[in-house]
């Protein structure tokens, strides 16, 4: 028997049926995205306007605020049910029409339009959604993340109930092993094996940690999961705790994600209230509780040993392994540390069985993977595809290709630890091993598309600037080596490159990779090495010809108009903030170098690429 207000297993089932009945009604509902992206484009006033309008029009239309829907570039995004009609870039002034259209004919002008200009009403018709398989993100845009009842209605915590009452800890671990799930933080270590080690470590006090310190620039998968379905992450953590015998857990979340922290805090409170966290969970004799720790801005704290030191209140510096966290982790106790996306998968894997999950994906990479698609691509957003899907599907079909007249040059995977894959290798499937073969890593899931105006030397310099700044300073090869690499790359970008530079970069890379303690240092040179592997000619153009083929490196540009190509349109003249472009109607433009501040505004404005 459970305490008053707390659920037992039967109570959880009853709540699910009750909530399902509430949500399963055929009454029209409006789901409005309220993730970080849509917040910034104005979803808060929009939701207020929609609610006001719904009340004014009789109150039979329900307005539900959801987490990130994934289609961030076209926010605020609204989904009308029934029908799955998608509206893009909705403004508060559209509220009257949107509410009136519920259950009827859609508002034509708010529909998504494909690149050919054709309006597509239903989400199922839009390639961005149709080609995805939402597994981890199954609840995105369908539930209110601030209401635990919504999560429960979609089978939330059913996996936990099964783990607690129908399975032994060894059985849970075996099920995880069967599923083939590998850590989604980047390294891809099998989750079941990690749990097995921690379960086997002796000790009464053990910890379960969630790594929500999503530091890779260009990655926002974990943020979106936390904002749209926080209970899935909590459920995963509790199941991990049951499996290894832990009673306390911590979520380490970066403070750059205030909305995620707010929703997590709320979710933990609700779970405690219903007896899903705390003493005797669901009336069993198992207890587990959770606390949130906020990061303070250090990339290296995403490394497991550094993260634990940071929770302990110290400088977040990695330490040598072994001992591995599974043996000696937080405060010297056996610890399991999993990433947000990994944890969000667990409840469903346990509920449906490991074999079900292993049925998706490739030989070595099972299940699905969430990617954050950004950069020079039309449909920026959050996508989830089966392992084994070619990158080209991700970029060209789901992503809708590169905007404007530009073409795709490369795709960057794995952030500062990863590499760039050139456009001609985009048929590479999303698979840990296949991606490693072309010189990148799967990483946590940031996919940054770069167009032909991206300079690969400049990108290598960008990543090295990041890495040398974030190196914790403990290992000399990483601390000093990355700084030397940055100096060399900066020199090359400034046109002061020397013939031996590439060799020195490679030599440094070899030493830093071999002699660094943690993943940050060991992978620090990957962006340089992959750029050298696929775009060596660009480096040589900078060093030998003192020329930047992509026209990005300011020091190597001449700021001259090529008269033979100039179409006399005057766009460069209009764009120049310094009044340095001299132009008159039907005249070729000319740049006054005395006045020019080298801001590149004219380069971006010129549709004919005629400024050198």
């Amino acid at each position: 028997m459970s305490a008053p207000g707390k659920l037992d297993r039967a109570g959880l089932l009853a709540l699910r049926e009750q909530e399902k009945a509430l949500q399963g009604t055929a009454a029209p509902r409006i789901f409005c995205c309220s993730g970080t992206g849509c917040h910034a484009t104005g979803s808060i006033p929009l939701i207020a306007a929609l609610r006001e309008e719904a009340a004014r029009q009789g109150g039979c239309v329900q307005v539900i605020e959801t987490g990130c829907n994934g289609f961030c570039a076209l926010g605020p995004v609204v989904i009308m049910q029934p029908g799955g009609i998608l509206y893009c870039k909705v403004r508060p002034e559209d509220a009257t029409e949107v509410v009136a259209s519920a259950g009827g004919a859609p508002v034509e002008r708010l529909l998504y339009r494909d690149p050919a200009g054709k309006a597509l009403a239903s989400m199922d018709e839009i390639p961005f959604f149709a080609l995805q398989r939402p597994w981890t993100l199954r609840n995105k845009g369908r539930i209110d993340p601030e209401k635990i009842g919504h999560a429960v209605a979609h089978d939330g915590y059913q996996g936990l109930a099964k783990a607690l009452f129908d399975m032994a800890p060894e059985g849970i671990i075996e099920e995880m092993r069967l599923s083939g799930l590998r850590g989604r933080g980047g390294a891809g270590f099998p989750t079941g094996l990690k749990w097995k080690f921690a379960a086997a470590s002796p000790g009464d006090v053990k910890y379960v940690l969630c790594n929500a310190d999503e530091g890779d620039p260009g990655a926002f998968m974990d943020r979106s999961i936390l904002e749209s379905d926080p209970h899935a992450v909590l459920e995963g953590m509790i199941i991990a705790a049951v499996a290894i015998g832990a009673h306390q857990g911590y979520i380490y979340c970066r403070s750059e994600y205030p909305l995620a922290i707010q929703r997590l805090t709320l979710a933990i409170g609700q779970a405690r209230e219903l007896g899903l966290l705390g003493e005797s969970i669901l009336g069993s004799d198992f207890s587990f509780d959770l606390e949130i720790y906020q990061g303070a801005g250090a990339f290296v704290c995403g490394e497991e040993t550094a993260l634990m030191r940071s929770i302990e209140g110290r400088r977040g510096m990695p330490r040598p392994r072994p001992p591995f966290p599974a043996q000696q982790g937080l405060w010297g106790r056996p610890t399991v540390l999993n990433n947000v996306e990994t944890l969000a998968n667990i409840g469903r894997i346990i509920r449906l069985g490991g074999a079900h999950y292993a049925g998706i994906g490739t030989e070595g990479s099972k299940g699905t993977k969430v990617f954050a698609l950004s950069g020079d691509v039309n449909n920026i957003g959050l996508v989830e595809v089966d392992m084994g899907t070619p990158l080209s599907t991700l970029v060209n079909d789901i992503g809708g290709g590169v905007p404007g007249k530009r073409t795709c040059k490369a795709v960057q995977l794995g952030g500062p630890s990863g590499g760039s894959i050139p456009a001609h290798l985009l048929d590479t499937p999303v698979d840990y091993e296949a991606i490693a073969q072309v010189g990148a890593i799967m990483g946590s899931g940031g996919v940054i598309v770069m167009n032909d105006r991206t300079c690969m030397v400049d990108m290598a310099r960008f990543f090295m600037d990041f890495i040398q700044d974030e190196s914790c300073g403990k290992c000399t090869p990483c601390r000093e080596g990355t700084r030397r690499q940055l100096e060399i790359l900066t020199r090359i970008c400034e046109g002061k490159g020397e013939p031996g530079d590439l060799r020195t970069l490679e030599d440094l890379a070899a030493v830093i990779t071999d002699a660094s303690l943690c993943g940050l240092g060991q992978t620090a040179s990957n962006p340089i090495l992959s750029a050298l592997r696929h775009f060596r000619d660009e480096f040589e153009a900078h060093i030998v010809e003192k020329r930047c083929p992509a026209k990005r490196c300011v020091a190597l540009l001449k700021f001259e108009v090529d008269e033979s190509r100039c179409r006399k349109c005057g766009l460069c003249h209009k764009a120049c903030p310094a009044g340095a472009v001299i132009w008159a109607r039907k005249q070729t433009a000319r740049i006054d170098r005395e006045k020019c501040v080298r801001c590149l505004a004219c380069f971006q404005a010129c549709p004919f690429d005629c400024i050198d």
Partner: protein
Amino acid sequence: MNQPLSTVYGVISFYSLFSLKPKGRHNIRVCTGTACYVRGVREVLDRVERRFGVKAGGTCEDGRFSLEPVRCLGACGLAPVMVVDRDTHGGVTPDSACEILEGYE
């Protein structure tokens, strides 16, 4: 806390969100993540620095703005992103960034 000052300083200087310098009236945070970089945040930073006489990591002489390039804010769908105090502005260009900032006294 019963900790030596050196330990406290060690922790403060390690994390980028701790600062030992006073901030301006308005804090401009410009995202320098990969997506924002690819979409031209460098030009935005340059222009803001020039227009308002503030260096990245510093504060204007009149204390109006502090300019802080920050790590990825995870709002890559809006790249390039600039956050002024608590307001997030997406898809900024050098021109629009300066225009937005004129609204903050």
